[in-house]
């Protein structure tokens, strides 16, 4: 999964991908982990991976904590990715760590009675109704849902998605035996409004579909909850790793429909400043939990 980002982004970023025995998927580097030293783990999606940043928040936080870390951020991942049987080795690494920082991931690719998740790249397939058999990216799928199905059906799918998402997080949290720091990372606060006007207003900003009720259900199950709501920032210009000139990461060959200027910018993933803000939010929250901090730093 990280390989896809590395291939697209290679002229602008070197993600130093590496592998861990028995863990499916490549990890974001540089490697800062050894078998014999204390470490913490970061579990999540592309935001935890740190696309388009040289120093993602797991790197910043673990430097501050003066411990090693494993970055289990996988592009496109949701809770379902981590509860698969083939990820048991990953869970074992989490359970050998001092603590786990668990990102609140998107709910837009969760299977419902009408839409089935395909793989872990954000694709859904309609399993019934007028769109039965059609496969597309989640944003498009929800747009088609609004267009072709009645409003009760739309609301039911959203509700199912949230319920399924929460159930999967419960399963994941039950597997983790070390202190968990649950992390909300978004441009929006949890107390946000959704509207079925179109797919974007229905899903909201990342983490899509997840509302304050979903988070409230999980908070009693974790040791610490951190809400990192970062301010809106201008898009990040992407630069060539060697020449420092603007780099069209989204090439015309691979992304023919994008407006020209967008090719040079990160308009979706957290910027380096947002990663710093997230790390700061974590630092401030952990500062209120001295016992947990002591446990991590032992």
């Amino acid at each position: 999964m990280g390989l896809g980002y590395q291939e697209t982004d290679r002229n602008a970023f070197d993600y130093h991908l590496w592998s861990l025995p028995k863990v499916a998927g490549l990890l974001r580097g540089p490697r800062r982990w050894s078998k014999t030293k204390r470490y913490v783990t970061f579990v999540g999606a592309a935001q935890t991976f740190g696309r388009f940043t040289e120093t993602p928040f797991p790197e910043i936080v673990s430097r501050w904590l003066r411990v090693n870390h494993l970055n289990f951020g996988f592009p496109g991942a949701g809770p379902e990715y981590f509860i698969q049987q083939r990820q048991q080795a990953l869970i074992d690494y989490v359970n050998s760590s001092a603590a786990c920082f668990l990102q609140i991931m998107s709910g837009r690719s969760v299977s419902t009675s009408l839409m089935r998740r395909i793989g872990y790249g954000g694709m859904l397939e309609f399993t019934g109704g007028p769109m039965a058999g059609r496969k597309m990216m989640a944003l498009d799928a929800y747009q088609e849902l609004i267009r072709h199905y009645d409003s009760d059906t739309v609301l039911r799918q959203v509700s199912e998605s949230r319920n399924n998402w929460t159930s999967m997080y419960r399963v994941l949290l039950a597997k983790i035996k070390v202190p968990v720091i649950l992390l909300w990372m978004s441009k929006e606060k949890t107390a946000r409004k959704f509207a079925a006007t179109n797919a974007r207003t229905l899903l909201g900003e990342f983490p899509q579909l997840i509302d304050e009720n979903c988070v409230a259900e999980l908070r009693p199950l974790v040791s610490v909850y951190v809400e990192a709501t970062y301010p809106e920032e201008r898009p990040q210009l992407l630069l060539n790793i060697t020449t420092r000139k603007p780099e069209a990461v989204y090439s015309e060959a691979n992304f023919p429909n994008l407006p020209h200027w967008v090719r040079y910018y990160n308009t979706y993933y957290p910027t380096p400043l947002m990663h710093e803000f997230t790390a700061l939010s974590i630092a401030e929250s952990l500062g209120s939990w001295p016992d947990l901090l002591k446990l991590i730093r032992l």
Partner: protein
Amino acid sequence: MILENIVALLGLPRSGTTIIARCVGLHSRVALIIEPYHRRRHQNYLETDYQKLCADDGVEVPAAGSLLIKETYSRKENVERPMLCLEQAAAQGVHAGLVVVLRSPVEAFLSQVEAVETFWKEKVDCNNSAESIDAFWRAAKRSLNIIRTRMFSFSRRLVLYDRFLCEPEQELVRMMGLFSYGLEAAQLAPDPIRWRKIASLGGDPKSADLRRGISAESKTDRRAQVSEFALKYQANANARLMMRIHRLLEELVKGEVYDDEEVANQFFLAVEQG
């Protein structure tokens, strides 16, 4: 020819560059050229256009593939030319990367002495003497200075030979990340025909034996020789520096330092302090 990546793999002679290059070169999308400049040094071969380099070597890069050039530090041209090749390719929009293989210079020197005595066809002036040590380190230092000043232009991986022997899969994954390719099963368990083909490109005949595999036991145990070297040449400044680097590399492996920048900083600082 549309090239996705061009990578140079450089290291001391007898530092594992051939076996590592072969493992990388076994990837279905990587074409390998071994020592194009060293092999043709008597013809003063200096080509840096990668397309001509491939044509001169009869190498065909797979469609949407990559080129790996392996060289050693025995001459500064062996390092200058690949770096220029990378720079020219990068100017044309090809992603360029660098792998620097690090092995104890003491072990590499002792291995070279043995190779000259036993199987190198071309006899070079290298024996277990202070003069040979000085010549060996002078050549190495010239090349390392070139690498140190120019490596920051490229994505890079520093590979410790001893670590590669213990964790070949993990180190190969790291190197393949430079190409944005995943590791293929054939790279660690090659079929004999493909292995023979890649082994025929040049390099140490000892490492051509597929049955040897890759492990800590793959290299000759030179601990006793290293101790003898340290004692015998303690009055030689270059030998003392080589021993310091030997110990540093041991610590980096033992201390599980994987960060390429950290390894580079410590290694090149040690080289400069000499």
